[in-house]
């Protein structure tokens, strides 16, 4: 049956503007593009689900088509739905299974982090992964850190957070927890400077990699777990440093997974929106000039959320930051997409424009909000990538520490 709320395909005026801006359709002719795979084909799929075709797998769910569409068609959502909802996935796919279980794999890997990092980047291991798991040989993996961020928080920060009256819950996500503790530490530093004490609550992976790999039921379970957990946090603000986790918590839960997140939606922000609001309200900590030239890359999901305006707003407040804003281009990694052998060339092809722009800007650092964009850019350019929060943490004066 056609659900009334899902008929946005009917608003399509067939202008093909979405396809002009689809980075995958630009990189390969194997993908017919958003217009054809989205609203066009949806009409047929509704009548006969067997018309779902394999080329849908090329869509990275970057949502650039939706940004471009003049008629507000939810093109990427239509494609995601078609990918997984018409065809039930039953068989076990080892690579997709492990790739999408970022919390399970991350949890194991951080216990043996030294060993994991060693093995995962061994030549022989890469050959094996290439052959058996279809993970491209030339892909570099994110390094796993020893222990988890939650563990570190308990040991090092929990006590010191108690002195703050205003409370903020930090949804840290898998990347901070397993791969980048220092971003979590920077977040605490910045929140403290703004006068907030940081709490952690029980959380599971937001579900983005699960959705991308077709484990919709598992994604729903995780989402419900997070909704329950975040819903119980009273009136504390909730922040996340990951643009993709934020996107899922705010938008994908109610729209794609059809779950009710009203218990926290009014309190949750992607971090730069939160900081922007604080700064605008006059709560600006002491900052010193950073003296850095940086190029800013806007991640696709943050663009879709309309969040770029806040990241730029905040960055423009950092003294001594010479910021080059790069033209909006997709980096090509799209979460787990670029880690798969069959997508590797397309993923790299999509990213070429961005890599060229970065080289042309000649920055000292690249700044971006998204963890997988960070990996992609660090692998393909010679630059180190910083999160906006890290940049603010670098600018903070020591004396902010006392501010309660």
């Amino acid at each position: 049956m056609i659900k009334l709320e899902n008929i946005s395909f009917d608003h399509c005026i067939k202008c093909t503007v979405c396809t002009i801006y689809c980075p995958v359709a630009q990189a390969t002719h194997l993908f017919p593009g958003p217009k054809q795979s989205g609203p066009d084909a949806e009409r047929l799929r509704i009548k006969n689900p067997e018309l779902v075709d394999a080329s849908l797998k090329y869509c990275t769910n970057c949502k650039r088509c939706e940004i471009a569409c003049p008629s507000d068609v939810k093109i990427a959502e239509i494609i995601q739905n078609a990918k997984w909802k018409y065809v039930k996935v039953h068989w076990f796919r080892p690579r997709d299974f492990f790739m999408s279980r970022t919390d399970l794999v991350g949890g194991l890997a951080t216990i043996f982090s030294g060993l994991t990092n060693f093995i995962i980047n061994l030549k022989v291991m890469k050959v094996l992964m290439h052959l058996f798991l279809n993970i491209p040989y030339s892909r570099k993996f994110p390094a796993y850190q020893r222990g988890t961020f939650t563990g570190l928080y308990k040991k090092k920060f929990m006590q010191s957070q108690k002195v703050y009256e205003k409370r903020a819950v930090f949804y840290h996500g898998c990347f901070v927890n397993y791969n980048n503790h220092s971003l979590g530490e920077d977040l605490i530093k910045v929140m403290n400077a703004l006068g907030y004490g940081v709490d952690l609550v029980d959380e599971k992976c937001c579900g983005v990699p699960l959705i991308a790999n077709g484990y919709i039921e598992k994604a729903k379970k995780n989402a419900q777990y997070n909704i329950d957990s975040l819903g119980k946090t009273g009136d504390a603000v909730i922040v996340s440093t990951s643009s993709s986790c934020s996107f899922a918590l705010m938008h994908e839960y109610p729209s794609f997974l059809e779950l009710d997140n009203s218990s926290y939606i009014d309190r949750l922000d992607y971090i730069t929106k939160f900081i922007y609001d604080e700064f605008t309200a006059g709560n600006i900590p002491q900052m010193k000039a950073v003296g850095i030239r940086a190029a800013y890359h806007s991640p696709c999901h943050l663009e879709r959320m309309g969040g770029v305006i806040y990241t730029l707003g905040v960055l423009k407040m950092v003294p001594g930051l010479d910021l080059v804003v790069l033209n909006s281009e997709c980096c090509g990694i799209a979460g787990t997409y670029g880690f798969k052998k069959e997508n590797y060339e397309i993923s790299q092809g999509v990213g070429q424009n961005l890599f060229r722009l970065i080289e042309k800007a000649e920055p000292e650092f690249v700044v971006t909000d998204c963890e997988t964009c960070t990996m992609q850019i660090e692998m393909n350019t010679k630059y180190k990538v910083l999160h906006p929060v890290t940049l603010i943490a670098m600018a903070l004066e020591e004396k902010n520490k006392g501010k309660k």
Partner: protein
Amino acid sequence: MIYDCVIIGGGLAGLTCGIRCAEEGLRTVVISGGMNSLHFSSGSIDLAGFTENGSVVKKPFEHIKNNAAKKKDHPYTKVGIPAIRKSLDYFKEKVSDEGITLNHNSDFNHFHVTAIGAVKPTYLSQESVFSSRGKDIIKSGAKIAILNFKGFRDYYPEQTAANLKEHPLFKNSELMLGDISLPYYLHTEKNLHEFRSTDIARIFETERYLPRIADEIKRAAGDADAVSLPAFIGINNYREIRGKLEAMTGKFIYEIPTLPPSILGLRIDHAVKNSFFKHGGEYIAGKKIESSVIKKGIVESIITGSRGTSSEIKAKYYVLASGSFFSGGLQSGVSSISEPVFDLKVKGDSKRSKWYSWNFFDKKSHPFLSYGVETDSSFNPSTQDGKTVKNLFCAGSVLAGYNPVKEGCGGGVAISTGYKCAERIIREIKK
């Protein structure tokens, strides 16, 4: 952190305004929902193409001047001839800095061919559409080959040829039709007719196949002096490509816009956006402004997003450049016309049956095209209670008082009103 100027709508009007404000050092942001109507346009800027009774205007500035007394509410009358001229010169200069040359026929209109093969007057065109060399070639009665790429569905050369044959300008010309094919297609799984103009433009942009395409053109065009192609010979580096093709074929290359996406329009879109970035403007795509807060004739903020994800944006000055019905700047109910962001006073008929003509191609056009937001002579609109909103300006096709199709003046109004609003804001801020 308050913007000097927030512009709602990233079309021709909003971006012209944005470039001018950003250039003056104002902190400027353009916030836009979907892509603008340049993606569907011919890429030529119409200034004043037709008179009230539908005949072709030869000298647009003269026409505007003569009409000013009669049409007090027309945006052109409010902008004034000197500022219209200045805005077009400014616009030309800015897109030229981004690699797109716009030509005009001194103070006269020239003709261009539209996507459905109609021959229409316009004022500014890219050099592949109007140049003095092209003009000479047509005058000399040269042989013209109208070519299409075999299998390409978004363009009808037969229609173009039929219309050109009837046009007095081409009465001496010999016209012929022909097809070219691209070698590239032999190696793709895609069906020929699945290719849109942008797909083909990207193939041209690689420049890999140019020599073979040139051979194809020479074969299909025979001894013709000029060749017209559907506009798909590149988006960003089309000038080099056109130059190379002309050198390789020894023929003059003319471009005709295709059905959307229109590459000629896309080039202008990219050029104005790049210019805006270069002057330090911020551009937020894919974000619709849903509502606003107006108190005592002053806009306090505008609001995006829905519950939980909504946010307020504040500025000293606001510009509404949200386009017409097509772009969502105006909305129609069962029997009402409204402006959704500020609920401004609009001019339009409340009787639905009066909105349109039964004849789709009515020469007098449809009345709804002239509906829009009413403003005073400074482009300040008013709220439903009749109060003027002082820090809000309106520009482009959201405005009432003109019919872009009937008068052939859409681009000129967008550019000149966008420019004029920017001048006003700059003056206020620098006070």
